[in-house]
């Protein structure tokens, strides 16, 4: 509550009013006239996601008793059911694992105190200008007794947390630059130094929130109703939309549907083509024997190409002040390493893998978290319903592996035993654009991008893709961070 008032103040300070924020189309203006004079807090977006019709999301929880019970648990544990969980409700198995991990990281015994955890979450989410997560955790932060002065910016926070800013920045955008010197800097700072266990906790939190920010943007999660302050933190991409867009098809759904139908007829066959390719790859794998050099160049090519995939056609956006105060150096973003001329050796998964090395390190310093993360990664990687759009009994493992490895490829992580030519076959350009944007600069994700890939697929499948992206990104960041820590320790 305290925070809500603070937030309203910021509204006034910035002389924003709700109407200023939206360019309201005439249709909506007419509708909203009726409400004049009544000040009722209203949720801005209808439904948890801007991209997915509310009806569809809510239906899931009604149909599936398992989802229902997970929602109940989540509500009982947190006293709220956030939009992220609602959207993840498409995949109850994953959601369960996700919530368990989240709960353990934020609430259970751990090396960091509660308000530190939330603050680190804020730092990480702010790196991607994810107002949704920032708001959520600002509330939590104040609730667990955090000092509101810290929220004025990293300068207000203790020096110990300030030192973490650098790690946060690198991890979020260019994790391959992380060296043991960074770790040493954090661990050997006299009275402001971190302990190893604390650092592991912080790293897990940072990576968790970076990737969660990706998910939030990737699924177009709308701000929570209660965090009305949230709207002042740069409402995601609102400038391009009218409220009726946000209304997500609930308002004038017929329009949307008509357009949707049109698109379907246009691109029908997309799925079939993809399936055909998968089948071909499966069959010809034995015959076609690419030479080792060929394989190596394929990886390099994919890596380079992933850089060239234009992330966003839109302009450089300057983050609004409210979120940006949580981090410094806003210009520091994802830079494509191969283009920058800085030669970074490829990270070989066979030399440092999550299963063998990362897990052991995390579990040693922060017991049980390794196990939880391991379950979560496996859940995301192995999740399948053997369906693709309207087709049933499809083995999607190849596609999932392609997506996973493509993301790791973007971070320079290479699997010796993977033929990167497959990626080119399976992932088309618009999909690559989406992946790249979501993973590297999620704040630039737009509804258009979300809609333009895999047009025939269900929303639940797109959420599934988002989960994959999120977990793959988290693992990639974690691998770099943990490797740096391991190097420091040896």
């Amino acid at each position: 509550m305290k925070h809500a008032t603070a937030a309203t103040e910021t509204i006034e300070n910035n002389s924003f009013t709700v109407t200023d924020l939206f360019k309201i189309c005439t249709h909506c203006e007419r509708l909203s006239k009726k409400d004049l004079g009544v000040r009722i807090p209203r949720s801005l977006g209808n439904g948890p996601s801007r991209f997915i019709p509310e009806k569809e999301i809510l239906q899931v929880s009604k149909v599936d008793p398992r989802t229902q019970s997970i929602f109940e648990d989540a509500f009982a544990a947190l006293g709220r059911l956030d939009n992220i969980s609602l959207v993840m409700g498409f995949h109850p198995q994953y959601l369960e694992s996700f919530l368990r991990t989240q709960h353990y990281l934020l609430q259970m015994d751990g090396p960091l105190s509660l308000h530190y955890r939330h603050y680190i979450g804020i730092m990480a989410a702010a790196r991607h200008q994810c107002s949704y997560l920032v708001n959520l955790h600002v509330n939590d932060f104040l609730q667990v007794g955090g000092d509101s002065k810290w929220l004025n910016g990293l300068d207000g926070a203790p020096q110990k947390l300030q030192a973490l800013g650098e790690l946060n920045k690198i991890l979020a955008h260019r994790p391959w630059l992380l060296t043991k010197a960074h770790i040493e800097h954090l661990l050997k700072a006299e009275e402001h130094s971190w302990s190893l266990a604390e650092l592991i906790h912080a790293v897990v939190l940072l990576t968790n929130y970076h990737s969660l920010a990706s998910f939030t943007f990737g699924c177009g999660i709308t701000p929570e109703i209660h965090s009305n302050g949230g709207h002042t933190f740069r409402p995601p991409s609102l400038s391009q939309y009218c409220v009726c867009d946000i209304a997500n098809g609930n308002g004038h759904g017929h329009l949307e549907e008509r357009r949707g139908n049109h698109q379907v007829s246009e691109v029908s066959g997309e799925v079939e083509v993809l399936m055909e390719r998968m089948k071909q790859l499966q069959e010809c794998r034995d015959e076609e024997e690419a030479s080792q050099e060929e394989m190596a160049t394929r990886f390099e090519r994919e890596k380079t190409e992933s850089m060239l995939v234009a992330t966003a056609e839109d302009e450089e956006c300057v983050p609004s002040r409210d979120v940006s105060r949580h981090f410094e150096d806003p210009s520091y973003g994802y830079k494509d390493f191969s283009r920058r001329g800085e030669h970074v050796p490829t990270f070989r998964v066979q030399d440092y893998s999550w299963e063998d090395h990362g897990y052991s390190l995390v579990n040693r310093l922060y017991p049980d978290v390794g196990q939880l993360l391991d379950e979560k990664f496996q859940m995301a990687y192995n999740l399948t319903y053997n369906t693709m759009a309207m087709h049933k009994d499809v083995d999607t493992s190849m596609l999932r592996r392609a997506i996973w490895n493509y993301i790791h490829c973007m971070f320079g992580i290479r699997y010796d035993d993977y033929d990167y030519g497959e990626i080119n076959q399976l992932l088309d350009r618009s999909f690559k654009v989406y992946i790249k944007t979501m993973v590297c600069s999620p704040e630039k994700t737009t509804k258009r991008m979300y809609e333009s890939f895999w047009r025939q697929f269900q929303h639940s499948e797109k959420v599934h893709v988002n989960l994959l992206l999120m977990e793959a990104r988290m693992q990639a960041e974690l691998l770099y961070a943990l490797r740096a820590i391991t190097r420091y320790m040896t």
Partner: protein
Amino acid sequence: MHFGQRERPRGLPLLFGAMEKMSRVTTALGSSAISGRTMFCHLDAPANAISVCRDATQVVVAGRNIFKIYGLEEEQFVEKLNLRVGRKPSLNFSCADVMWHQMEENLLATAATNGAVVTWNLGKPSRNKQDQLFTEHKRTVNKVCFHPTEVYMLLSGSQDGYMKCFDLRKKESVSTFSGQSESVRDVQFSMKDYFTFAASFENGNVQLWDIRRPDRYERMFTAHTGPVFCCDWHPDDRGWLATGGRDKMVKVWDMTTNRAKEIYCVQTIASVARVKWRPERKWHLATCSMMVDHNIYVWDVRRPFIPFATFEEHKDVTTGIVWRHQHDPYFLLSGSKDSTLYQHMFKDASRPVDRANPEGLCFGLFGDLAFAAKESLISGDTNRKPYPGGDRRYPIFFFKKPDLTEQFAHVSSALSVFESSLESRCMDWFVKTARLYLLGGKPFAELCDHNAKVAKELNRPQVSTTWTMLRLMFSDPANLSTPGPNNISKLGNLPLMNSFSMKEMGTESRLDRSKGEIRQDSIHLEPGNSLINSNNDENEETEGSEGQAEYMFGDAELDDDDLYSIELENQAAEEQEYTLPQEAFPLRHEIMDNPSVPEHLQQDKADSPHASGNEAEVMCLTPTESFSLIAISQPLFSTHLPAHFFCPVVREMLSHYAEQGDVQMAVSVLIVLGDRIRKEIDDLTQEHWYMSYIDLLQRFELWNVSNEVIKLSTCSAITCLNQTSTTLHVNCSNCKRPMSNRGWICDRCHQCASVCAVCHHVVKGLFVWCQGCSHGGHLEHVMNWLKSSSHCPAGCGHLCEYT
């Protein structure tokens, strides 16, 4: 002989077994020729695996960027051959594993990270020794294994979940085994059963296969939680399989029975990457770990708590270990990520057991003390009472070979048990004090008085005096005067006040003067004092603990005077029991001594806060004896006396008490004085005291007191103690199963567990129930109900009572 075996047709394991024995005899004899020392050489790149050839003269090292053969010479490693040839080495050279054939010395196999299985023939005349290339696996190959006796048989296990058996005379695999589960981490042919091999999996399973039956595994069991990184068959014992996993365990399984039986389990400190049985030692095995820990351990599986030997040379994780010769237990080779290759001599290993403390100490439930120590230390101790069960010694395990260097240090400890005598066991004073002390909820002066009284009754005059002194030091005169006369008038024999005034008689004039000055000063200090007062008030309000506190300290409900009359009667009885060591040093005697040695007093002031705490007494009693004394004491009192003037003294006093072992006093004073003293003592010390006291309280099961202390403490580290692990687990009242998710509805039986008997709704908050009939409901509802009716709201007819 070996070459003869190569041609041997399959299916003659029995005959073969005999031959193998014979060959072993010869090699064992040959092994005596091996010699060397602990040595190492630098590799160019981190190693992933190593393997030795059969005659123990060469070792192959394989890694991502290295594939070399080194000769093992007396004094050093000599590079013999670099197998990584070609201008642009392909991924086929990036090895995850390597194995040298144990029958054919020119034959090597590697597992490549890109999924290839490669064999190498050293007999080839060309520079490139690559022989065969199998690219059947789709994912990284984790392990290759030659058949121990069959020349052409090679087995591989891969990340893709398949194991493949290759006949090196053919271009492709002869059979494929599907684990039906996750990645294969290790495959090992059994040393004794010709057809059997074991495979370990990432999901924690171990499977046994018959090489002739690729359709289905013979047996499967779950060996570890999480991946099983390695397994190794015992070289001599047919049925023994050792497995090591990410769960930091090494387990030894007996496979001869119907169900795989875990017979030994060693807990290491990091995930186990490799495990290798030690040749010629039935119980020994060597392990190295995947992460964090760089040492190589040799364990005796029967003593799983301490490694038998440790090799600590490596600076990064050890990735490959192998015993140099299959019948020589004294040489161990290891490769590591730190790019070194080591030969370890067993005689140079460090023996952790030598450094281990064979002493142990433990308190029993009733204060008995058990103490185990090396016999040599204990013998000759006259006070020792033998334990009724007799001295317990560790059984000595080693019967087989009397080689001293090969045994665990012969430790036999003697166990003695000391029964505590009645007096020393009596910690009643501690318990009583803890219960009776008031730590908050009243004005400072009252707290001090109360605590002084408590101490007095427990026959601890020194502590009692300290409390009184504290009150005098830190109370402002206004507060001082009110309780003072009260006490005296009420309890005519309040010992301290009495003695104090009596003692002061001699120097009344001086004291009056000083008192007057105190008053003056206290006027100056008024703002500060009032602040303290208001603090006290605040404490009372915010804690709201007055009622609670009374409840906790049940005895305190008796009012002061009641308490006194009762306790005084008991006092005599109690006095007999108590011998309190720290109060044993006689106050009076010290006072008598003082005059003769005036310097001593000054020293005392500095050294022993206790003495200086009682300084006033000392001065007063000996006014005539030494001028210098008065000269010292006068300024003490006559100058300004703000409360913080005493802080150093009090601080020393507290440390004194703490050092003497009476941490109770230290903490109690700390709490009662609160802000007055807190800043004077560094946080770590405070925290230490608090922790010790809380620990003591909890051992005496004084949970309430300990919680009170936690609550009242000002250390953040302490106050957070009772904010952790606040989860409360409940079981469903219906099906008696734990309710994992919510407190009010059971997942399994879908019954609401706690329904209010009045409104029949689910109770989600406070649930109050009658202990007689176990019906209950919302606190408010039940309260209201019982106002109007005395029967149970559920209608069971029980006459419930609400108090």
